[in-house]
């Protein structure tokens, strides 16, 4: 059973972020980078699967500048069998689709039974990369997974998916598959000191785009489908304080205050199955292209 875990470094949220000059990216001075907490959940799930399946191996993979190595070594300290760093000068200003293209290329080369990654990144939070990787690899995917129960033969998994307000959806998923991991019952473990020491001197494999068979022109900010135009600090909107009608009962008034006031919803409200709604939304979006 070969498990690949995709990890990303994100901006630690306690550090105030400001735009760089020009404001198409954030100012990276003083930024503290940490492994995306959702990716650590994915790592934890991978480690637990390996505890059950003796022959399972875990490969941690990441892409980006030199600093990314620290996150990979953290995965090694947690117990990953190997770590791959995709390092190339062309990797800069990428959008999620380009990221997914590169990752999918590398993962296909490595071979896999299961790809685990965080459901979203704690900084950008697009939740795009997992699903795009699955599509590019042409395998099944389940997003926002809270619990994984692999079948004994390792050929399928029964997963629980997080829905809103504590609901869970049970889905039977064949392997190979991509699962994006969300908060569940598992807490990421802490690396032991002997493991940290080993990880500090372990070998991290490095791949560049050429080794993946990708041309710089295929990837990179020029060919990006989504470009960042401007980053700015939002100014807080003046909040209107809602005062409920005093003729209502106390219970009604409390309910209104707690819900932030009742507002008219504008626009169409689509209902139906996921594919039906998706089709209708794409039709609507086409008007804007």
């Amino acid at each position, binding site marked *: 059973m070969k498990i690949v875990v995709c990890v990303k470094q994100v901006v630690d949220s306690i550090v105030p972020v400001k735009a760089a000059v020009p404001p198409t990216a954030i100012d990276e001075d003083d930024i503290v980078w940490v492994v995306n907490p959702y990716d650590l959940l994915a790592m934890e799930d991978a480690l637990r699967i390996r505890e059950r399946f003796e022959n399972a191996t875990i490969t941690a993979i990441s892409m980006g500048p030199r600093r990314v190595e620290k996150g990979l070594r953290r995965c090694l300290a947690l117990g990953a069998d190997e770590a791959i760093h995709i390092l190339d000068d062309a990797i800069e200003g990428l959008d999620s689709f380009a990221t997914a293209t590169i990752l999918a290329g590398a993962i296909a080369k490595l071979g896999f039974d299961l790809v685990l990654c965080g459901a979203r990144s704690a900084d950008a939070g697009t939740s795009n990369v997992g699903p795009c990787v699955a599509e590019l690899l042409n395998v099944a995917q389940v997003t926002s997974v809270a619990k994984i129960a692999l079948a004994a033969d390792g050929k399928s998994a029964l997963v629980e998916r997080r829905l809103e307000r504590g609901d869970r959806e049970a889905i039977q998923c064949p392997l190979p598959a991509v699962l994006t991991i969300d908060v569940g019952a598992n807490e990421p473990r802490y690396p032991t*000191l*002997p493991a940290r020491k080993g990880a500090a001197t372990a070998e991290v494999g490095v791949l560049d785009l050429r080794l993946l068979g990708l041309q710089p022109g295929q990837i990179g900010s020029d060919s990006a489908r989504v470009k960042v135009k401007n980053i700015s600090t939002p100014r807080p909107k003046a909040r209107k304080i809602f005062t409920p009608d005093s003729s209502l009962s106390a219970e009604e008034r409390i309910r209104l205050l707690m819900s932030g006031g009742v507002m008219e919803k504008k626009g169409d409200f689509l209902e139906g199955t996921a594919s039906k709604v998706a089709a209708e939304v794409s039709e609507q979006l086409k008007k804007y292209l």
Partner: protein
Amino acid sequence: MFLLIPKEAYYLILVVALGLFIHRLYSLVRLLGVADTRAEWRSIGRRLRAVLVYVFGQKRLFQDPYPGVLHALIFWGFVVLLFSTVEAFGKGFDETFSLPLLGGNAAFVFLSDLFALLVVVAVCLSAYRRLVSRPSRLSLSATALIILALIFLVMASFFTNEAAQLSLSKTSSWWQPVGMALSSGFNAWLDAGSLSGIFALSWWAHIVLVLGFLAFLTYSKHLHILAAAPNIFLSAAETHPVPRALDIARQDRFGASRARELHWKDKLDLFSCTECGRCEERCPAYLSGKPLSPKQLTIGLRKDLLRGNGRRNGAASLAGVVDEEAIWACTTCGQCQERCPVSNKHVSKITELRRGLTLMKGRFPSELSRPFQSLENHANPWSIWHKTRDWLIEENRVPRVSEENHVDVLVFVGCTAAFDDRIKKVMAAFVRVLRAAKVDFGVLGAEERCCGDPARRLGEEFLFQEVARQNIVAFKRMGVRRIVTACPHCFHVLKNEYPQLGGGEYEVLHHSQFLAQLIQAGKLKLGDIQRNFTFHDPCYLGRHNTVYDQPRQVIASLTQNEMLEVPRSRSLSFCCGGGGGHMWMAERTGKRLNQMRVQEIHAAGAETVATACPFCLIMLEDGLAATQLERKLVAQDLAELVDSAIRE
């Protein structure tokens, strides 16, 4: 001839009995795994003095007067009677044997008689205490009662033999009153034949009981008879015990997951423990209902050490003898170590066990992952951006210490004063006081890292060394000579623990000491605060560093009123509950320590409790809020009090 058997048989019995005794001792010493004893031979003077005071003087035992006297009598009795016992064994080789100088000496004979009687009395009273009075710190113990019985019988055989000898030799000796009393009884009821028999039997009884006693003590807690004096000798040089240095680069194993992985000195502690319970009796965790008892911890570890690792009754882990929750319940306040009559260091074991859990298994209360992560990424446990530390420089215009700008006094701010709103006020007040006294001072600002105390107390030695080394490098680069800090944890670590990592070429003072110095030098003009003060001694200032008087001197200079003392003050001060990493842990069982403490302080009648520690201040204020005593008792730091008393 009273031996009744051939002399060779006597020699054989001695050889076998002593041989077994020495063999058992040898196997116990092997379990210790003694290595690297170079440090133990330093400060010989202090060590010998400790043996004099704590072993022969029985000093710590008298803190609990009644049992202290009983034990002292039994101990001194043993010392005195050691000589007559040697004489008795000697007589088995040669009937006429008598000790040089002492043998037959009237004073010696009198003392032996007297102490044997005192021992009998003490043993009877001790037995009564254990069986009837049943104080809570003593567990009902079969071995204790067996030993008391054995001692009683040894004394009985001593007197019987003495009396028989007096009767047989028809001597009248005013130096042996007890012997004489018994002897007159013998004379009245027994003839010479029976007396010879009694003389021989009582001699044999004495020999066998003493040999039996020796054997028994190596299988029971009475091993302390042999282990306590060496233990006290070895503990004496550490005036401020600190956790052992860990060479992260060289070692593969860290901390202790089993008793055998403890340092040999810690293992000697286990053999020295007498199960007296003085540690448990004052332990704040134990008193508030947590599953920790320092006594049970020591006994559990000893059990683990003696049961081996697998063959017959071995085990794979500490489960069953040491509770993991107990290990985390300790606040490292040091009250246990302060009271232990054999100088055991319980906190050292807690630290090693925590290192074993955190560093080797990554296992610790889950709420600690956040402060650990914060220490690793931001060099402070509060999950706040490190540049926030510059507030003193940016808002209060405190000079920034740097390579170009050296100062006389570096104020080491500490994480709590840098990030917590309440304690920021204390630091701002302290800065005002320093300015009023015209001190040349500065701060490191964002260059300052956590002193490392929370990491070290929780076993995360790796994170401790990371932040500590960065501080040490900064101190060197910026030519730091003198450091003053308002936090006793920072004070303790910078002064006592940084030398392990190469730091320490600077003087470290706690702000209570520095304020006392400034006041004494007349640098501050203070008015009179009309309030009733008391002082809550912080564990890391008082017990761990024996600074008790200077905070009181500061308070005395603030007010004409006499300062009140809380019943548990100075070395008996009751922990606020914030130390040992507990500032970042949830208190899940039992009563809350801070609430217990504020109620005690309030009951003592104070209006204001002065503190000298940011953790104590936060914990006490929380306690006051929770017990709704906020209007009746106010907690304030010494710096704030001095600041409010300054007159221009």
